[in-house]
């Protein structure tokens, strides 16, 4: 368990945000942590699940930061499915 900084981009938001996550976080939690800084603040919420993309690939919801091979300060893009 270690704090891990990533760059988060939520689909349709205007800015790249610095988000501290944990290297054992599954992608469902990573998506929530990134969405926290955007959804309901600048992007309207939607009643749909979210997904995380990394270097063009959609990551499995139960993949962790470590298992997905995400490096510190990589860009993670979150969107509604």
């Amino acid at each position: 368990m270690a704090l891990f900084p990533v760059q988060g981009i939520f689909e349709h938001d205007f800015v790249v945000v610095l988000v501290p996550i944990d290297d054992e976080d599954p992608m469902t939690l990573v998506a929530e942590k990134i969405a926290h800084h955007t959804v309901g603040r600048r992007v309207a919420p939607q009643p749909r699940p979210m997904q995380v993309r990394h270097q063009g690939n959609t990551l499995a919801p139960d993949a962790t930061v470590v298992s997905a091979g995400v490096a510190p300060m990589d860009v993670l893009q979150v969107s509604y499915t």
Partner: protein
Amino acid sequence: MPRLARSEWYDLTRDMNWTLSYVSDEDVWPQDLSNSYGIPTEKWWGWDEPYKITYPEYVHNQVGKDASVYSINAVLSRSRIFEELDPGWKSAILAHYGAIAVPEYLAGIGEARMGRFGRAAAWRNMATYGTLDETRHGQIQTYFPYGLLAKEPRADWAHKTMHTNEWGAIAARSLFDDMFTANDAVSTAIQLTFTFETGFTNLQFLGMAADAMKVGDVDFGALISSIQTDEARHSQQGEPTVKILIANGQGEVAQKLVDHMFWRSWHVFALLTGLSMDYYTPLEHRTHSFKEFMEELIVKQFMDQFRDFGLEVPWYWKEHFLPELDWYHHALHLGVWFWRPTVWWNPDAGVSPAEREWLEEKYPGWNDSFGQYWDVITANVRDGHPELTLPETFPTICNMCQIPLVNPAGFNAGRLAHPEPLIVDRDGRRLLFCSEPCKWVYEQNPARFAGQLSLVDRFLAGHIQPPTMEGALAYMSLSLAEMGQDATNYAWAFEKQLAVPGT
């Protein structure tokens, strides 16, 4: 007293050039301080300023300017003009003072360097006046806000900003250090006087002075006009320097210096002037949109200059620069407003229904691309959730311009191919860039820029303690009383769209 006409003695007295015999040229003009780009010493002696002035004339003119502008200030400081100014305009001038006042002193260092290390006596003569000019501009732009302190404590940031690690101050210092504080004399002439002053600030100051008069800020209008008259003179050091580089086969050097500094200047200009013109200036006093101002004045003048001097438009002009005119400053405005506790002025949202109509007219598609963010923000304000309009983390930041990465806004507006920043892993460090031109500038001279740490770099390196928003605000020297708040206390969010008659 000499009775000769100036034209009979001017050239003789200003051109005190001679061939060195006891020391080498390198000893007198070390490359780090005055890069000749291989042009022989005597070739520089043809440097000829377009605007000529003698020291007695200079002193006579400057005394008159100071007497005039300080008199206006002395009278108006007893009035209630400042208190009655539009809140957005107050924000614009507080942002201006913080970003510009102390850098004027720093520009004096650049001018003094040209005054000593310029490669022709005529140039050193002009730069000496430039040194005095910039010192005057530093003094006047710290004195005027000093007089406002009883009315607006944030005017303290005219002096304070550049001594802090506030993120805008880091961006401005990075630009100005590159441009003049840590630049050699020849490059300074191209990058400060030819690119930044002739290209941007000269026209900007004319526009700001006119806007100030329209909004009733006679004090600031007089100040800016007075400064502009100096800028118009000393900025002309660039033209003869460019001519000598081109005439001696170094046109590519001049081109690269211009390309480099035009881009860097553009980004900070968009941050300061873009926000002021399109969001902070009261709607009824706006004449141009920022994009119109850029296209009709800045871009046109640069195109004329490029043509007149045989330079090319910068390589990024069509693909990167022109598209940014449509979206970049809108994204920065949204970012500055949302992260308003991190700036020393009160950002004016500038998105009342009437202002949104104006934005849509000037920037077709603004409502679809930027209005949607403001819709969510407006709803949060109306619903009594201001906490949702405030940040809980940082944006990531470009390692060249030191400005937050708003690439997703460019992507959403259809002007960028993808929302991600550019990433370069170099020497064990991850560098982030907002654009190809910022990456290009960095990669032209990595050793020059590698020591700069963005605010996010500093956060990740543990310089900011505690590593929280509160810790970061303290690191930026922003106390609770100094942090920016919405300029109109959210009045814009409660204004109603006027019904159109007959509908």
